[in-house]
C-alpha cells in the first residue's frame, strides 16, 4: 500500500496542474470584467490630468491589450512572480506569505476543533437517537448552522470581549506580550479563542449533523450485528466498527468545507481584525488592487486544490476499497 499510495498522491497532484491554470484564466477574466480600475483608486478624488492618467496606465501595463496582459502575467507566474501590489507597495507574494500563517493558524485550529468535536458529539448522539441529549444537540446544531458568521462574531465580541472582558477584542497578539516562547503561545491562544469559536460554529454544526445521520445508518448495518454477535463490548462496536465506516462521507465533507472556510475567513478576519489573508482580500477588493487580488485568488485556489488532494489521500487511507488510479 505504501508505494502505491505515494504514486496515487503524486498522480493526483499532477492532475491538479491544469486545474490551477484554468483557475488563473478565470480569475483574470473575472477581474477584468468587473467595472472600475486601479488607477481610479490611486488617484482618488484628486483632479489628475488625462496625460498623467495615461502615463500611470502605461507604467502599470494597463494600456496593453488584454491577451498581452494575460501572457505577461502567466509568464511571471511561472517564476513565482505574482506582481506588485498597487495598494501596499510591496511584492504580492511577500505580502501573501506574510499573512498566510495567521490564516492557516486560525483556520487549522477551527477546522480541527470543529471536526473532532462534531464527530465526537455526532457519534454520542447517534447512540441514543431522539434522547434529550440528542434533541438539545440537534437543535443547537440547527441554530449554529443557520447563524450568519459576521453577526455571531459581533455578538461574541460584545458579550465576551467588551462586556465580560474575558478575551481581547482584536488582533493576534497584544502589544506588550512576549514575542517568543510560552508567553507568546499563550497570548496568541488567548486571541484565538473568539475567532475560532465564531469560525467553527457552522462547520461544527455541519459535521455533527452529518456524523449523527451516518452513524445511525451504519449502526443499522449487518456487520454491526456480527460485531455484537462476537461478544465485543458496545464501545468497541460503536467506535471501532461503526465510526470508521461512518467517517467516509464525513471526511469528504470536511475536505470540501475547506473552501467554504477560506471564503468565510474574509468575514471572521474582518470582524476580529485578524492579520490574515481574509482581511488582505477585503482590503484588495476595496482598493481594486488587481495584482494582489489575482495573487490571492490563485494562492487560495491552490490551497483548496491541495486540500482536496489531501482529502482523497486520507479517504484512500481509511477505505481499502479505493482503487489507486
Amino acid at each position, binding site marked *: 500500500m505504501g508505494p502505491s499510495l505515494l504514486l496515487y498522491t503524486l498522480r493526483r497532484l499532477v492532475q491538479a496542474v491544469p486545474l490551477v491554470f484554468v483557475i488563473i484564466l478565470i480569475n483574470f477574466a473575472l477581474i477584468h470584467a468587473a467595472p472600475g480600475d486601479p488607477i481610479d483608486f490611486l488617484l482618488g478624488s484628486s483632479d489628475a490630468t488625462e496625460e498623467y492618467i495615461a502615463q500611470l496606465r502605461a507604467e502599470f501595463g494597463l494600456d496593453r491589450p488584454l491577451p498581452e496582459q494575460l501572457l505577461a502575467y502567466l509568464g511571471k507566474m511561472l517564476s513565482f512572480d505574482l506582481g506588485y501590489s498597487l495598494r501596499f507597495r510591496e511584492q504580492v507574494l511577500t505580502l501573501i506569505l506574510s499573512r498566510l500563517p495567521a490564516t492557516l493558524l486560525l483556520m487549522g485550529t477551527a477546522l480541527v476543533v470543529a471536526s473532532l468535536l462534531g464527530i465526537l458529539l455526532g457519534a454520542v448522539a447517534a447512540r441514543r437517537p431522539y434522547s434529550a441529549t440528542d434533541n438539545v444537540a440537534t437543535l443547537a446544531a440547527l441554530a449554529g448552522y443557520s447563524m450568519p458568521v459576521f453577526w455571531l462574531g459581533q455578538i461574541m465580541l460584545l458579550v465576551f470581549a467588551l462586556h465580560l472582558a474575558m478575551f481581547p477584542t482584536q488582533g493576534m497578539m497584544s502589544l506588550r506580550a512576549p514575542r517568543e516562547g510560552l508567553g507568546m503561545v499563550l497570548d496568541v491562544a488567548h486571541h484565538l479563542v473568539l475567532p475560532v469559536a465564531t469560525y467553527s460554529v457552522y462547520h461544527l454544526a455541519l459535521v455533527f449533523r452529518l456524523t449523527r445521520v451516518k452513524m445511525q445508518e451504519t449502526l*443499522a*448495518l*449487518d*456487520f454491526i*450485528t*456480527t*460485531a*455484537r*454477535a*462476537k*461478544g*465485543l*463490548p458496545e464501545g*468497541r462496536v460503536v467506535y471501532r*466498527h461503526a465510526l*470508521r*465506516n461512518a467517517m467516509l462521507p464525513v471526511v469528504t465533507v470536511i475536505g470540501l468545507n475547506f473552501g467554504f472556510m477560506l471564503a468565510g475567513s474574509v468575514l471572521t478576519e474582518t470582524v476580529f481584525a485578524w492579520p490574515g489573508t481574509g482581511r488582505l482580500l477585503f482590503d484588495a477588493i476595496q482598493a481594486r488592487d488587481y495584482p494582489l487580488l489575482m495573487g490571492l485568488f490563485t494562492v487560495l485556489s491552490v490551497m483548496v486544490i491541495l486540500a482536496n488532494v489531501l482529502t482523497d489521500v486520507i479517504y484512500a487511507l*481509511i*477505505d*481499502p*476499497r479505493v482503487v489507486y488510479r
Partner: protein
Amino acid sequence: MAGAPLLSVEGLETHIATHAGTLRAVDGVDLHVMPGEAVALVGESGCGKSMTALSVMRLLRPPARTVAGRVAFEGQDLLALEEAAMRRLRGDRIAMVFQDPMTFLNPLMRVGDQIAEALAQHRGQSMAQARQAAVEALRSVRIPEPATVARNYPHQLSGGMRQRALIAMAVACRPALLVADEPTTALDVTVQAQIMRLLAGLRRDLGSALLLITHDLGLVAEYCDRVYVMYAGQIVEHAEVGALFRAPQHPYTRALLAAALPPHRRVAELAAIEGQPPSLLSPPPGCRFHPRCPARVAPCDRDAPPLFVLSPERTARCWLHARSPADAAAS
C-alpha cells in the same frame, strides 16, 4: 433422548412495535437442542425463524423486543442475564453464522483482525497472539493460504470465501452451540454444498450443536437430526428428520414437502401453497394456517389448536390430531 438439553427455549414471545400496531413475530415458541445435536428450524420468509434466533442471541434491535419466555443455555437463563455476562457467552459458548457474507463483514477491517477480535475478547490473548490464532481458524475452514487471506479485506474475497471467514469467526472460540441463520442462501449452489459439508465437519470436530435456520428442506434432510416447522410465529410441527419426511403430520408441512420434491420426482409444475402467509399484526382466528389449509375441519376457523403431543419426539399443532371432539372442545 436422555440428558439435559444444551439450549431450551420456552414460551418465547418477541414483538415488534410498528405504527400499525404490535407485530407478534415470535408467538410462544418452545424448542430445545441437545449437546452436539443438529436441529433445523424451517419455515417460509417472515415466519419468525430468524427473529427466534436473534432473540436467543439477544441481538434484537429496537423496535423488536422479547416480551416473554425463557431461554436456558448451559443452565443459565439468557433472558435474565446481565448484558456483560451475555456478552461473555456470545461469540464464545454460543456463536452465530449469518446469511449474507457480503454485508455481515466489516468492509474496512482486515479479515484476520475481524476473527482475532473475538479471540482477544474471550481468550484474553494479545492482538499478536490472536492474529496468529485467526490464521489457524481460517485454516480450519479450509481456506487456502490462510496467512494471506487474513491480511485481505473482505472485498478481495469471493462470496464463498467470505462465508468461510464468517464461519471461522464463529467457530474460533469453539462454541457449544452454533446458530446458523440461512448460511447458504446467498451463495451459488455449488458453494452451498461445500459450506454445508464444512459446517457438518466442524460440528463433528468441535462437538458443537447446530441450530440451522433455513427454508431449504434438502439441507434439513441431509444435515439435521430433528426439525421444527414454524408458521406465522408458531411451531406447527416437531419431529425427527426421518419421521417428518416419511409422514408429515401437519397440513402445512405436507404442503412444504410437496413444494420441494427431490429433483428426480420433479413434475412439470411445482406445487405452490395457495394464498399468502397471514399478517402477524392481526393473525386469523383459530388455526393460523386454516385460510390456506386443504384439510380444514370444523373448529379450525374458530379455535386455535394446541400443540398435540403425538409421541415423545413428535408434536403437531393441528385439530386433525385431536383424539376426540371433547379434546377439541376442552381447549
